[in-house]
């Protein structure tokens, strides 16, 4: 198992009050699997991702990646954030080669890798631009290229398309699907869009509202290249929507 989570719980303490965010979560992700974590706001899905990424420590439970416990962030788990988080003082190239520089890769190799991934996300023409000159969609593509170029074992994505408008969002979903068919990475993807989850995932894990637990797991039997209007697609969507709606209702009580 690439990612192995057992009995994970996380409680936040603020001003003397304890807020349980995650409760007893078990999760397994196999190599090359694309798993989506889906749930209403506040269900702890980002917290789960942050713990796997190594940004937060669990209150209890185990998180193992490739059999080794997670003690902090590392180059083996690449992250793509909702707010892009590009380094504003570096160009697109500078951002994408960041991890490679840290590894001490020889300059020639760096250039080749950067070129390859910029080509992959379609930004080769913008290599010398600064993030402040790019649109939201472009920035996110740089972020994806940056994460991929570092060749991590796993890619973690926290609502990466959440800050984009609906059209750009769909375009990037298509792109991500295309990239995944080329790269075949192990991906853990957090989202609150059911449509997005059904479009991209092999498995969809629906979480309950806070404190987050796993409500239901859906294994999608859909073709590799997905058609958003195919009947099987909409059927999966409906099934999952029904389950998610139960939880959303609880949040708004």
């Amino acid at each position, binding site marked *: 198992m690439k990612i192995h989570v057992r009995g994970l719980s996380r409680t936040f303490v*603020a*001003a*003397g009050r304890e807020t349980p965010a995650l409760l007893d979560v078990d999760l397994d992700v196999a190599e090359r699997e694309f798993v989506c974590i889906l749930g209403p706001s506040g269900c702890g899905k980002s917290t789960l991702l942050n713990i796997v990424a*190594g*940004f*937060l*420590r669990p209150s209890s439970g185990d998180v193992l990646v490739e059999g080794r416990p997670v*003690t*902090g*962030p590392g180059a083996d788990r690449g992250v793509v954030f909702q707010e892009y988080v590009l380094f504003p003082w570096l160009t697109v190239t500078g951002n994408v080669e960041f991890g490679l520089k840290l590894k001490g890769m020889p300059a020639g190799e760096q250039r080749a890798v950067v070129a390859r991934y910029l080509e992959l996300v379609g930004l080769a023409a913008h290599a010398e631009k600064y993030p402040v000159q790019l649109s939201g969609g472009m920035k996110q593509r740089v972020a994806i290229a940056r994460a991929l170029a570092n060749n991590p074992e796993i890619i973690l994505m926290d609502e990466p398309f959440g800050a984009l408008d609906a059209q750009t969002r769909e375009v990037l979903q298509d792109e991500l699907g295309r990239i995944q068919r080329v790269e075949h990475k192990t991906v853990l993807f957090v989202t609150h869009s059911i449509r997005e989850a059904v479009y991209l995932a092999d498995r969809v894990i629906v979480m309950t509202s806070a404190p987050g637990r796993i409500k239901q797991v859906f294994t999608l039997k859909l073709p590799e290249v997905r058609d958003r209007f195919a009947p099987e697609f909409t059927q999966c969507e409906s099934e999952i929507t029904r389950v998610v709606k139960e939880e959303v209702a609880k949040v708004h009580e």
Partner: protein
Amino acid sequence: MAAVFLSSVPELMEWGLHGEPLPRRRALRWRFVALVAFFLLWSLAGAVVEWTRPFNPLFLPAPWVVLGALLELARKGQLWIHVGATLGRVAVGFTTGAVAAVALGLLAGQVRAVRNVLEPVVELLRPIPPLAMLPLFIVWVGIGEGSKVGFITYATFFPMFVTTVHGVAQIDDRLLRAAQSLGARPRQLFFRVILPAALPDVLTGLRLGVALSFFVIVISEFIGAEEGLGYLINDGRNFFLVPQMLGAAVLLGLLGYAGNGLVRGVERRVLRWQQPR
């Protein structure tokens, strides 16, 4: 090596550079400890100087010596005269400057013509440190209360004027339009929309003005004054009364802090709508 002293990576990951937010009581306790440590260190330094005498201990008086000097002055009744003189000048100078700055600022913020006339004058005079004009005031008005108060007014006018104009200028047009489409007449618009919307910036400007008043009063009390905390400090030079100088300086700091707190208090009451709780 660095990891022992600076925040560790897991801490940075979870909290960023700020570190874990401290519960209120612990934070207060740290502040208390820090201040106590500071005074202890100061006292220690003063005591060491007293014993070993590398230089005249008057040059580095311990905290209690400073306090003693102040209390002595208070006992003789002189302290209040000086504090009163300084406060009086600051109060009059600041108030005059504030009234002028806010009135003209509000006017300039709304009436283009006024702004076009005043702005070049302000832009010309602003880069000149007000201190450079002090001798001019003294030449004009002589060494007396007039020049000191006038100087404070001059010095505090510009920043308060600029912040007031900015306060009016930054008002979202849509607020004005919304009020107008609810039937507001010009006079109502001013009192019910423009004034409240500009108030945060105006009050910030006032706070700046208070700080600046204390900043500049010192130098004008160095030159040609017979009373005042600034006078106390400069006068202390003649007989190396460093404890007196330090004490007066600290008092000035306290007064400035109190003045700032006053405006902040006003802010809190008048700007209650800004606080989310």
